[in-house]
């Protein structure tokens, strides 16, 4: 199934949330809004390219964006990707299960 890096997980969650409207700028905004992290368009684009190579997402070229007239690339989560994402999420949850209080104590002194 393949291991997912942290950044790849963020992207796939974004794609999941955005559904049919998952394209570069929207994915970027979703990640920034939800996590507060700034990510570059290039990083997203290349990560999506790798994920597509691994069969986790599928892309299609959609309608041009409003003003500049250039086509957008939309992404959809495939079953393989959904499985990998679910597994990653479950793994983290299992690892972290019951450890949050201790973590909070260490982190905040």
């Amino acid at each position, binding site marked *: 199934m393949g291991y997912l890096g942290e950044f790849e997980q963020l992207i796939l969650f974004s794609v999941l949330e955005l559904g049919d409207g998952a394209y*570069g700028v929207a994915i*970027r905004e979703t990640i920034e809004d939800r996590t507060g992290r700034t990510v*570059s*368009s*290039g990083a997203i*684009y*290349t990560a999506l390219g790798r994920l597509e190579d691994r069969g986790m997402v599928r892309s299609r070229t959609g309608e041009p964006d409003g003003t*500049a007239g*250039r086509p957008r690339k939309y992404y959809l989560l495939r079953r393989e990707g959904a499985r990998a994402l679910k597994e990653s999420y479950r793994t983290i949850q299992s690892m972290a299960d019951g450890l949050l209080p201790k973590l909070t104590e260490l982190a905040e002194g």
Partner: protein
Amino acid sequence: MIPLRSSPPDPPGGGDGGDGRDPPGGWRAVAHILLPGRDGAFIRTELDEGFRRDLERSIPVGRARRRYRSNLLKSAWSLHWGHLRSFVSSGLLTDARLGMRLLARQPLLTAVAMLALGLGIPASLSIFHMVDVMYSPLPVPEGERVMGIREWDAAPHDPVPTSVHDYERWREELQSFEAVGAVRSYSMNVHAGDPSVPPVMGAEITASGLDLLRVRPLLGRLLGPEDQIPGAPDVVLLREDLWRARFGGDPEIVGRSIRIGGDSYTVVGVLPADFRFALDDQVWMPLRARAVDYPVGGGPRLKVFGRLAPGVDRETAGTEMLNLTARRRADDPDRLRTITGEVVTVPGLLMEQGEFFEGNPDWALMKLVVFSLLFLVCGNVGVLVLARTSSRAKEITIRTALGASRGRIVVQVFVETLVLGLAATGLGLLAAEFVARELAALIGPFGLQYWMDLGLTPGIILSALGLAVCASAVAGVLPAIRATGGQVRANLQRVAAGGSSVRFGLGSSLLIVTEVVLAIGFLAVGGILVQSGFRNTSGDWGFDRDDYAVGTVRLPLAEAGLARSDSAPARSTVAQLREGVLEELREEPGVVGVGLGSSLPGGTGGGWPVIVEGEPEEEPVRTARQWVHVGFFEGLGRPILAGRDFDGSDVEVESGRYPDRVIVSTSFVDQVLGGRQPIGRRFRYRTPTDTTGADATWYQIVGVVGPFGVNVVNPRRDAAVYHPLSAADVRPARYLVEVSGDSRAFAPRFRELVAGVDPEATVTDAVPLGTIIESELTFFRLVAALTVALAGIAFLLSVSGLYALMSFTVSQRTREIGIRAALGASALDIMSTIAGRAAAQLAIGLALGAVWAWVLLADVLGVDTLAVPVDIPLTIAGTLVCAALVGVVACLSPTLRGLRIEPTEALRES
């Protein structure tokens, strides 16, 4: 903190390119380069859309642009990193890796080389960047197409004051501009009933001016042509931050009446906080001056600007303006001989500076500075690479003997140097960005105008990288060619004997000497600027600016129905008010002296050329023309050094005419009269609007006073002429008050005193003199700060080069030193072996450096024209001592290291 460039918000309904809704053009070009191909095209689309969406989410334009830039650079890295990874196995990258390992093994040399490139290249570029920054286009839509229009007098290198007549003529006749406007900025008291608040900058501006700047009001409307008609209701626009701060952000502000000075104005609109035209103004009112109301050349002084017509460029407009003035000159060739019309950037217009261009000696000097710095950089790096290459002599020679081509080795060395160069330059650029921000904070709000953005631009980054590549090529390739040259066999023999295939000959000596010479030149200039540019004390000006407060009183002529009148009732009203205020001030405890005059100490010189009777009419000296009340000098305790002070006979209150008597400053006597006896001499002014010399007024000198800060930056240009001013004169005048306490605290008291004399009269500004002087000085401080920084860098480069070379020499001659020590040579002998050559290079460098510094300071910079007398010999001596000390230390350390070498170790090492 420092306002960054930003555009006003756009109208709803979107906009097309060029009105701020697209990312900056330069960066889009960079995006095309950094993000090529199909993948790059998709990413670029995303970048553009991200920018537009940021704007839609009300992220300020400046921040949106920064996000675009950051996103672009990171995206390029992401895109290309994949390509780079596949490059790892290629030979070039192996060379680079080898290069990096070598860098790590010789940390000192590496550090010095990185210092040279990382500091030197951005520092050199910063000079050009500073010029770009100072003359950046206005932060308005298509701001680069808004230009200033003015006339320039080439003789004293100053702009010609622009009159209402000039404005109307240019508005009518210039075809290159689709719209022309005029503005004048000054300090105003804006309040909602509490007159003790500090004044703000405000402007009188034409409706056409606001229109062409394409500003959109947040509330209400802009000014219209109907507002400019004399007698129309008094209206005003406020800036958003002023509206919030002084009027509580009142949502009903439009239509509300506020007070400015003594008058009521109706607010008709609120403009965005980031609109600061012209001089960080917060208030705008209609400009009502018309040419018909004034004699030719009279009236208020304006700044005229315009938006270029579509398809017209600055050069075309400049040519038209040149021709326009030339036609006028044809009517009066003598008077207008040195006047030319020009089209300049708006910052150049507002700062009243000449702009940098080919032919301007300042520009030539800047280029000299830049190229010297770059030479130092390349020289340093070259020396270091040579040294490093030399230490690999054995390896190179053997490789050559084994058949490696010269080209291959040279490429290897080049790539290694390139790695160094790019890394260093990248770090240097980051440091430059940091320094720029700190410098901006240092200069402060007075020096840094709202249009100046000191951050990095695409041009700077690309130039820096280009220079790094060139420097690496020069510094890397030449030594490599040398190292691989010569007879292979001879090299092998030398290498076997423990020496090097590289000899440090005349070339490297010349390099070191040149570096020392240049560094001394830089240091001397820096020393001068530190002395004069950063002077805060005003002892050299002949007075202490902290002792003075300044107040301007708005005459209540409008209320008395006497607006713009020169009639007897008007004069009587004014005289009464002025005498009343003077009296109050004189009796006020804490006031040491008071004077009334048209101008103040703390200016930057004058614009009135004079022609002395009986003297030839070439190159007239520019003087500052001032009007002072009869009791001015006595009131402020300024002694009359020759002749007499003004008295009642010098003004005729009834007729309003003045006998033509003047008092001049000592600078006037020196510069205009060559130090000759002044009393009784006569002169006239030469103005562009003079008809013929026959009708000009001749003025007679009756007295001489000492300097009183007419030009705080350049006392050489502070020749002043003081005309007597009657208290009844309706011309604007300001009170200069010498106080024994804190001049800042005096302002509210001043307002009270004036209100006590006449409640209708109000104080339109009351500030410490220091505040006004500060703003004049900061432009020059910016230049000084930058040059001192460059001087420091240049010196550091030079010294580090010397140190590194010395260090290397010691390590190369370890064996030789060891043998000599084993044979019984004394410490002194060994020291002279090691350091003798370097000491000679240093000594020659110092000697030549002293000469170079003298030439530079006395001739090229014209140091005797700077603000305060600086002692050139002392400065140069100080510089030499500094340089010698540092140079000696640079030589000493490696030398001492050499002395500590054990003979047996030395012999073993080879």
